[in-house]
């Protein structure tokens, strides 16, 4: 099986340093350490397990800034065979419409049985790009997977899609696009061997014209939305600390909740 995993470098939440540029309110990416988006790591882990069980390889596709190769090497170190990065100055400030078009353009002409994507990103948080990519490519779209079971002989894939009351078992022909979730299992840590091997793996860089799209179709210049401003929310009031025996503490909590008309 050949599986494409869509990955995005995002600001490291743990760094606490995320900020917007004051002139255009775009994310100040170079200022913040980048990591592979956590939800994409679940997709990658699921893809690696599937190729371990069924044979084949995992390749990465990303649309990101010029600094992305360092982050993508981390995903290659987990076990992906190679990667394609679409990067172009014109893509700065891209919205979800552009992102879906560029990723679909990068996938066009590639061979794959499955495309896996994370449920959303920790920076934009939109969660609409995978559905857009599937729609543009005319791929079956199977979202919020807790389990992925391909049947390579039949050319179909089954997915347990998380629903509010349990799950639905979905079935579609391959190739198909699947949205992965954390329920698929904990991502592995790259081994030292994996990290060494990642250095020599192929990471192909493509410009917008290679996808092929133009800056009149995608990118910051044709963004469908714009940020008008940002502000820090009002700070929370100081924390009240209770250090009392359990019964007294409980009494004070109930009084506090009643005072705030929560109960």
């Amino acid at each position: 099986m050949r599986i494409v995993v869509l990955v995005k470098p995002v600001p490291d939440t743990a760094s606490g340093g995320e900020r917007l540029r004051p002139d255009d309110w775009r994310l100040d990416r170079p200022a913040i350490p980048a990591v592979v988006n956590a939800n994409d790591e679940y997709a990658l882990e699921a893809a690696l397990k599937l190729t371990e069980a069924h044979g084949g390889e995992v390749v990465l596709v990303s649309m990101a800034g010029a600094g992305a190769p360092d982050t993508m090497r981390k995903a290659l170190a987990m076990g992906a065979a190679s990667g394609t990065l679409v990067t172009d100055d014109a893509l700065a400030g891209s919205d979800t419409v552009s992102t879906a078009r560029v990723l679909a353009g990068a996938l066009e002409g590639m061979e794959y049985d499955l495309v896996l994507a994370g449920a959303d990103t920790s920076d934009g948080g939109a969660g609409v790009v995978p559905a857009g990519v599937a729609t543009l490519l005319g791929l079956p779209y199977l979202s919020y997977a807790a389990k992925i079971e391909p049947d390579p002989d039949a050319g179909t894939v089954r997915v347990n899609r998380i629903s509010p009351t349990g799950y639905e078992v979905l079935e579609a022909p391959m190739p198909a696009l699947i949205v992965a979730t954390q329920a698929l299992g904990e991502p592995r840590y790259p081994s030292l061997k994996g990290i060494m091997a990642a250095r020599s793996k192929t990471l192909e860089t493509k410009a917008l014209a290679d996808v092929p799209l133009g800056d009149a179709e995608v990118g910051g210049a044709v963004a469908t939305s714009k940020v008008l401003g940002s502000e820090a929310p009002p700070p929370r009031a100081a924390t009240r600390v209770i250090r009392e025996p359990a019964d007294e503490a409980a009494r004070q909590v109930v009084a506090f909740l009643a005072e705030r008309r929560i109960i």
Partner: protein
Amino acid sequence: MAKAGPIWVHGELAPDGSLAKISTEVATLARSLAEAGGRDVAGVVVAADPAAAAEELARYMPRVLAVTEPATADHAAGAIVGQRLAALIETEKPSYLLAGSGPEGRDVAGVLSALTGWGVLVNAVGVAWDDGPVVSMSIFGGKLTTTSRLTADHGIVTVRPNAVTAEPAAKPGTVEPTAVDVELTLPRVRIVDRVEAAGVAAPIEEARIIVAGGRGVGGPDGFKVVEELAEALGGAVGATRAAVDSGWIPYAQQIGQTGKIVKPALYLALGISGAIQHKVGMQTAGTIVAVNRDPDAPIAEFADLVVIGDLFEVAPALLAALRARAG
């Protein structure tokens, strides 16, 4: 000049075929925007049997289009509903579509955006009107609130639960059965089975009160007191990634960076340290109360009230106090 286009609401279905709670909130919000902008407002329900959800949505808005779509009975809805909405948009010319920001709303918004080229403003926690929707969204886990607008005079907005309180309209609207005669061209995804998980409560994103447990709860047995407190408060049960990864509670209950983002009126955190990955999922809650043994846990810095103590002593005492109060 013709009146500018209406504002539409995607009427989302709950698993039992009734209207999802989020759609009542989105409809309430759309009604106030329409009033502010002098626009018409309507809802659209696309389903194998849209009648019940459409009737419910019509309590919140003057007009609801009910599209009977047999294919959604045994096929994944996102792509099908997205195509039906795209076709209706073509003929009815609405300006904006508002949807929920949960899985169903995202699926529909993603498909529809790709089919129409419409932009999407996501995860609105508030929407004002200034010649179009102006959307507040909380980013970086609540560290900043941005305001954004669409650059065109049309687009999609996904709205988070609890952005507004649902209120029915003064008088109910009418349901119009609507046919859409356009072939579905996107591939269909068959639903071969539906499996109910035991003990699943209401979606945590919609809960007014959440009682959540973390590593400190210690195991699946420890979650019993979390569940009992949730029940006593009429709330839902949440959890940290550590508790989910340990298999103590299903992933659907996970709050945080790789789980759900929630904004309840009360977040009661038991045995939760408040690491950044969890904090980003809950720190915009109205009131945060924590019970933790460690006075230096990060949650003590951003909770409104912290009880320093053993949760296995404090939680049962709290349960007793709540039950005594309820009489």
